[in-house]
């Protein structure tokens, strides 16, 4: 039988929802989020802090969840990619990532989105240098970063304008077009 680490209680808020669970005392935050909380949007790319795919916000600060002991986040307010949208109203950066090609295969996307959302909440109008500095810990192998930077600029414009991204599930004014009416 393997020696088992102690189980300890972990309390925290994940995407606005309070969680109180038992975890192993040496558990890594990434594992807790994926395996216990069910935040499968938080990705494991390298397990050693080199790719940024596992980034989450801990009390608003971007952290690499693969290098964070879960126990150190006891009582924290954690935001993962699943917590960025407001219901079906996407965060502007989610919307512009799609529109401007910031996401291709999409595996690094959650990490980028989380880091950028933190950037935009602190600095709604970052310049190019600030954008690059913010995402320097995130690796994307598909896009070559350029379209990610474009997405951030576009999201910044939406944020500044105060507009809210629409909800794709809202009722249509004419859900059965093409039948009579004209």
């Amino acid at each position, binding site marked *: 039988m393997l020696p088992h680490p102690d189980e300890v209680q972990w309390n925290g808020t994940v995407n606005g929802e309070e969680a109180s669970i038992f975890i192993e005392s040496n558990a890594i935050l990434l594992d807790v989020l994926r395996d216990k909380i069910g935040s499968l949007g938080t990705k494991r790319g390298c397990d050693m802090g080199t*790719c940024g795919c596992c980034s989450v916000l801990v009390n608003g600060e971007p952290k690499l969840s693969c290098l964070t002991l879960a126990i150190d986040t006891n009582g924290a307010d954690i935001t993962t990619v699943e917590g960025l949208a407001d219901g079906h109203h996407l965060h502007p950066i989610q919307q512009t990532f799609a529109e401007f090609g910031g996401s291709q295969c999409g595996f690094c996307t959650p990490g980028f989105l989380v880091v950028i959302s933190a950037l935009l909440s602190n600095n709604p109008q970052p310049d190019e240098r600030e954008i690059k500095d913010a995402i320097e810990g995130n690796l994307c192998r598909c896009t070559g970063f350029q379209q990610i930077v474009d997405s951030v600029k576009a999201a910044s414009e939406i944020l500044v304008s105060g507009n809210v991204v629409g909800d794709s599930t809202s009722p249509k004014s004419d859900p059965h*077009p093409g039948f009579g009416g004209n």
Partner: protein
Amino acid sequence: MAEEEEDSVSGDEIIGYRQQPGKLPFSRPGSGGKNRFSEATDPEKIPISQGGSLEQPWGPHRHDELVSGQIIGKPTALVDSSWKVTGRAHYGDDVRLPGELIGRIVRSPHHYARVLSIDCSKALELPGVVAIATGEDAKNRFGVLPVTKDEHAMAVEKVRHAGDLVACVAAIDEATAREAERLIEVEYEILEPIHDMRKGLDDSEEPIHDRGDYHIGESNIQKRVFQEFGDIAGMSQKSIASHKKSWLFAGVNHGFTEPHAVVANWDPSGRLTLYTPQQVPHYLHRALADVLEIPMHQINVHRTFVGGGFGGKSDPFPHEMCAAILARKSGRPVRITFDREEVYWVNRGRHPSRIEMNLHADKEGRICGIETDALIDGGAFASFGHVTTYYNGVLHTAPYEIGAFHYTGARVWTNKPASGAMRGHGAVNSRCAVEVGLDDLAEELGVDPITLRLANLLPPHSATITGFRVTSIGMRDCLERVKEESGWDKKFRKLPLGKGIGIGCGFFISGSGLPIHWDPNKFPHATVHLKVDMDGGVTIHTGAADIGQGSDTVVAQSVAEVLGLPLDMIRVKSRESDTSPVDLGSYSSRVTFMNANAAISAAMKIRDELIDATVEITGAERKGLVIGDRRIFLKSDPAVGVSYLEALHKAQEDRGALVSSGAYRTPPMGRTHKGAAAGLAPAYSFSAYVAEVTVDVETGQTKVDKVWAAHDCGKALNPLAVKGQIIGSCHMGMGQVLSEEMRYGRNGNLMNPDLLDYKIPSVHEMPEVVPIIVESNDPEGPFGAKEAGEGPLLPILPAVCNAVYDAVGVRTSELPMTPEKVFKMIEKRCRNEGVSDPTELECPSLQYSELQKTLEERGEKHKSRDKERRLDEDRGDYYNGALFGLDPSTPPDEVDPRWEVRVTPDEVYLASPRLAGSAWKHTERRHMEGTK
């Protein structure tokens, strides 16, 4: 009869159905979709030949009449992007099934060893361990190519590289599985490993694989190629300038962000569902059936979202077999997820290679000969290597017209993780060598390197020296665009020391002409099914594997365009082999070309039925009807028409949902010599890049400042995705040229199997890329499209190499060009020139020779030749060789005795072969004396 019918509906009075009579311009009734009125049909997207305003400098296309102005050519977000940006896209490791076990793999610590025994007893005693499997459980071989099946699920007899699979274990959690991994005791007899690819050419006591009768000598040569085309004897006689360089290219890895992961589950009915991020689900499907010894119909391969592929997820993999075997043994679902290190053990990255490149130019500045010798390091398994060995040669027979082509290539097995297909498969390294060679050749001839290229291009609709049928060529436009936009003439050889500008070109296949498993003349390469039910939405079933490049999107776009529907009315089902028609997968840049063509042909059948129904409702004449935005109407009088749903429901009367199937198959092409099919494609992409760099002469640090990247993708169906591919390719290629390398130590150990030491450029190293899309409107491509996924990677390497030469006057022969290497070259140059301070080195300069003018004139002449050829429907044949005075209308080897076509070496060559060429010194066992 037909004429009578037409007569009856022509004339002033239109009989039948008129919506909103007298109200023009007609406002279109919507028929579904998010908004009642989706975006208006865009005349700028409709070709002039169809009454729109889209200019067609390359002439009309057979799909023009299908253009409804909806979506083709508009920047379009990927159809699955909302899943990705919300974190709800599920990749391999995100598939969680109730009762799952965690699988781990026991890997060899030795480079090469015989497995004497495996003792699992201690591991099996560990509480929580449910199943263990070894090579004994799956003895059948597999491999992506049927001709070179040399892999097992786990070692049978031998392990062939450090990290090779020996056994696997399934346990209730990861900690237990890792502990069990440690408890499995393996006894090895260590064998002498081979790490240097050159040694692979020699006879060995214990070759890494045994190919039986087809084994080449007792060596580790997996594949060898010899090709000679053209005026081989004349090439050196006529040469007035030549380039010779021996290159060493380090191996590189795909570096996708998602590590491999797989989930296997046998359901109560005895069927296996395998969830895996795969580029080639169908090949995996076949391999699983072979290894598990069950019929294919008992297996459902479920492709999850794929977190980057780039060729690295395009083999059936042993760990996929392991998961299936463990799940079978344990009766529970098994999930295996790789550590990042394991990704490097399975590898399949670009081959480390040694390439000798010789180029010759004659007095008229024609490229009278290319001689290439490429030795490539295949690592422990064959993978796609059979093809790679050809691609290293045949994929540089264009875009230039050449007088002679000599290629010797060999791929050897070594005790390293296997090399395989990676973006730009087989073409990247030798292309870099050719393009750097041309730069050197131009300097020797005293001409501008872009002028040299422009004066030696093959025309559109021609045949290369190896007999590839090339259709559209946008190469000239690519070169002219980057030349103009980069301000080339003001910069080339005129920038100060440390600043440089360079050019590079590329040529790549758009789909492979040969489907691996069957006769292309019998079975299609791609099949797409459509289903349109009463709701009006269109369901597409395709097996094309979306790996992030946007294949789901392009197939949806094609169908939406033909049926005049907004994109949100299309849903793509491409995940499961149970529901998707067979597709070969995402490799060889084939998906847009083949799948979109199949999708168009399926959509045309639905379109015909909708138009038939419209004729029935309105009585309008069929040939005048067009499809616009969710409406089918008379082009000459848009008020006459019906909404899409009305037509659809009419068509569904008495039969229910409309279904159709469309397929794509390549036309018969190419020549008949051995290996003629390798590199054959229904179309080819072309690209030209100019890179501007800054080199710190005191440290050797190279920074790419800006790249002008022109790529001829035929027609950009989704310009957003095309630009993404171009910029992403620049990023990946820049990594290979400047920093990325799978670094093996003196004892053959991989030193950097992680993303910290394997140096992928970060956002700070990434230059500004100006993507320039050139649309050559390929006659056979879907709406004119070709590929954009791989070709755009090729030119960045030589462009950077050439720019570094322009900046500091040194030419590398090793990649990656790390600061140390550049610094050493600068140091050497200083020594040679007696300069003590590198900042006082002179920049390379260029004095035009008389040839410059000749080449400029020839380039201009060819420009109008090319334009005529692409617009002239009745153009004659053009065989490579015409530039050298031969008749363009016949293959030169049929009329000119000097023109050779040879695929085996003669004794003269064998007397002094080049490096890879020496592979031909061995005899295949079946031809040896004393054996059969």
